[in-house]
């Protein structure tokens, strides 16, 4: 009802991110990395606000062109009207997949965790296969994953496995955090998880590791928000059961964004908002500690010149670049931001056979800038960004925590 006492019509959450708020400024299309790299993509303005007016739950989904959306969310970040353009695209894709069926690749990529577990269990073999040209040719032919895309190495010992076997620590702690490590750390980069734990424990924080399911973002961007929702419900259930006062940390910007935002807004999971409000990106959390005077500043100098590449999803967090702030605290570190937009891989987008070339084209500006800078490594808080930079620029890439861990003398 419209009453005088009612807050403005624009004050409700729906209105703020509503597709109807679009004022046709076309800013989204100009920042879209896909639209700027190919002529056959109509852009977020069309796939989001314009098409949405014609989408009807009773009619078959309009999915034409949706698959070219890489899911980087730069459109949302720049929209003056804060339209959640991505959400409309994902919902339409999901509905389309429900109507037309999903491909094998949709299934494979959507079930990243499952496949990663398999890869981890068969680690030496899986890693061999992933580098074997014949195997990759078959994979390209039957699954649709580009043969030249380097696939991550699997580790037999998972992060969870490692964490479970660690001896209990008895040092007194001021805070406790729950670490949402994500599939990547678990199966591909245990060391990152170990560094995260080390840095937190060094600062007097107890780390607990709840059981967790995939955050669901691979499913979201592979036309399966239904699956993502199932994962999300499970994660929210477990995370809600954490004792009060325990914050949740994520070291992947995409996992973090799912937990913070998409569980509630895209997937409508009950209880997700209160879980989301407890989630921090690891650098965000450490900076918060620093402002509270709780961050240990006894860093050893780390003599390095690094570039920092802010992942697209980090921008959606709306927290700025806490990694940059932290890195500036460490003596010896010379860090410069490399601002060339999207790296191009955007999660599973760039592994697809028909998207690989496009993803390399999107990232080409970044690659050139990295090569030209000649720094020791490129830091990025997102694992697929790191993969892409290593592949496209031939440069080492690490999570910013790597520098912090070294500054604390960790291994």
């Amino acid at each position, binding site marked *: 009802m419209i009453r005088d006492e009612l807050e403005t019509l624009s004050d409700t959450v729906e209105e703020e991110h509503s597709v109807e708020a679009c004022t046709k400024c076309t800013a989204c299309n100009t920042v879209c990395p896909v639209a700027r790299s190919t002529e*056959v993509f109509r852009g977020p303005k069309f796939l989001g606000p314009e098409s949405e007016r*014609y989408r009807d739950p009773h009619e078959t989904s309009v999915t034409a062109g949706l698959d070219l959306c890489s899911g980087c969310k730069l459109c949302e970040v720049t929209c003056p*009207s804060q339209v959640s353009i991505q959400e409309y695209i994902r919902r339409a894709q999901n509905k389309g997949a429900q109507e037309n069926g999903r491909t094998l690749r949709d299934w494979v990529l959507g079930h990243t965790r499952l496949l990663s577990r398999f890869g981890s269990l068969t680690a030496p073999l899986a890693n061999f296969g992933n580098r074997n040209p014949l195997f990759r040719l078959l994979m390209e032919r039957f699954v649709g994953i580009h043969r030249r895309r380097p696939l991550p190495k699997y580790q037999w010992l998972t992060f969870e496995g490692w964490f479970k076997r660690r001896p209990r620590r008895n040092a007194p702690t001021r805070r406790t955090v729950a670490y949402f490590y994500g599939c990547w750390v678990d199966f591909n980069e245990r060391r990152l998880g170990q560094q995260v734990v080390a840095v937190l424990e060094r600062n007097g924080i107890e780390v607990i590791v709840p059981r967790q399911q995939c955050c669901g973002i691979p499913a979201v961007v592979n036309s399966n928000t239904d699956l993502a929702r199932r994962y999300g419900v499970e994660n929210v259930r477990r995370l809600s059961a954490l004792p009060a006062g325990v914050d949740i940390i994520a070291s992947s910007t995409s996992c973090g964004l799912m937990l913070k935002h998409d569980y509630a807004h895209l997937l409508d999971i009950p209880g997700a908002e209160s879980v989301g409000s407890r989630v921090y990106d690891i650098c965000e959390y450490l900076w918060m500690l620093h402002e509270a005077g709780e961050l240990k500043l006894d860093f050893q100098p780390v003599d390095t010149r690094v570039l920092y590449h802010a992942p697209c999803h980090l921008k959606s967090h709306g927290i700025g670049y806490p990694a940059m702030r932290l890195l500036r605290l460490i003596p010896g570190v010379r860090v410069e931001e490399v601002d060339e937009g999207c790296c191009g891989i955007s999660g599973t987008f760039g592994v697809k056979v028909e998207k690989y070339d496009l993803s390399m084209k999107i990232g080409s500006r970044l690659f050139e800038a990295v090569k030209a800078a000649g720094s020791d490594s490129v830091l990025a808080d997102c694992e697929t960004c790191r993969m892409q930079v290593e592949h496209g620029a031939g440069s080492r890439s690490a999570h910013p925590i790597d520098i912090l861990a070294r500054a604390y003398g960790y291994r």
Partner: protein
Amino acid sequence: MPDTSTGVVVIGGGSTGAGVLRDLALRGIDAILVEKGDLASGTTGRSHGLLHSGGRYCVNDLAAAIECVEEGRILRRIAKTTVEDTGGYFVSVSQEDEAWEPRFVDGCKTAGITCERISVEEARRREPALSTQVRTVFWVPEDGHLDPFYLVIGNVESARRRGAQVRTYTEVTGFVKNGNRVAGVISRDTVTGEETTIGCQAVINATGAWAGFVARLLDVEVKVVPVKGVMVVLSRRLAHAAINRCHKPGDGDIVVPGLSVAILGTTAVKVAHPEVLPIESDEVRLLIEEGAKMLDGVTTARAMRAYAGVRPLYDLGAQAEGREMSRNFAVIDHEERDGIAGFASIVGGKVTTYRLMAERVTDLVARRLGVTTTSTTAEVPLNDREDEMDQLRHRPAQLGVPKPHGEELALQPLLCECELVRPQDVEPWVTDPAVRTLEDLRRRTRAGMGPCQAAVCSYRLAGRLVTDRGVDGRTATRAMADFLETRWRGVRHVFWGSQLRQAQVTAGLHLELFNVDRQLQFEGDDPRRAGLFTVPAEVEAVGQP
């Protein structure tokens, strides 16, 4: 000597007039339609867009309800390119509504309207936006959305293909009489002022709310009561089907989704003149509040514009007011009633029953002309072209896919991005002499009908006027400004939220980036005048080096 001669002159370019023209053409009778504005610029173009199942009338006006049922079925057959078969729901939100239900159910039964009660859960599954206030739901599959513009244009084009002629911006100023028989029509081009006489054997007055004015030219009285109805357009459809309130018909009790919008309506206020239709802020508020009772999201939806239409209620002599008057129609045989031969009026009615109205009055006139062919408008389909409405609904799917373009793939350009109008949709109309303003173009293509209300496409259309039609810059700029002003008139009444923000973008673009306000000032014309453009006698040489 008349300048032209024909069999019948049809006055009025709304649904009735267009339907009459087509009926005449199908019977092989020569006819010319004259309309003082543009086609569908009167009542029809401002209708709610509801293809009535009759459920609304079945309790208090059984005859009207039965007409709707029958005509609805016919239109679905012959005019399906202009119909979106959405179905409709009648919902109760209060105890008073619940008391109305048995009468509603009986009325539907008597009128032969399919009506099925469904559970609220099932209804919400089909229409997730149904409000929590909804207590009872009836599914009425024969409600639908009828696009008034495609309907009128479709009828007119069908008639023109069979030799009929149409003159828009042509106002009837008098009649030529031969004793007591009407022998011709004196008309005036409202833009150039040029007068023409059209000789004819009969005249059909299909001017709806203006019927009285035309009749007066023959000193005959036709008492039409203009009753205004205000509507609010929301920038997207919140529901698939029409949502009606199950109660005694009142204000704001229908929400009609169609294509990409939902229209809230309507009110009923007697007015003095069919062209003076003020929109009161109370009416706008009421429509939103009433709509919100039935559908969630109405109060937080983006309101795009408000507009007012006028019902042509025929005063049968009773004391009945406004809505209470019958929506039935009447054919007035002026030979019988007033001793004037060759003149008939068709009054009352609604868009849904236009075809029947047209048939009845054409029957009368054809009989008098000695033509024995009966009407075939109930059988012959309106359009042998592709399904318009379907095309529009599926336009996003087409546009998302690149098409082969020489050796590569490319996407199609859009002229109006809000309404997905392509340049090729606009091109045939830009040079059509019947199109005199960009509003006329809008009616035929939907360009400018989206959330940005022509902010972007108005410049592109002005460009087309110059490049395709040879109009000079001054006229094209004024056409663009007039178009924006007309859109603005409707936007002002819903000036809050996103539409207010949009206006800042529109004003920023046209006044700051383009400096159009100073351009208009320089030209010396009053920018408030929504005018017309013509190809000037001396086209200014733009000059090609």
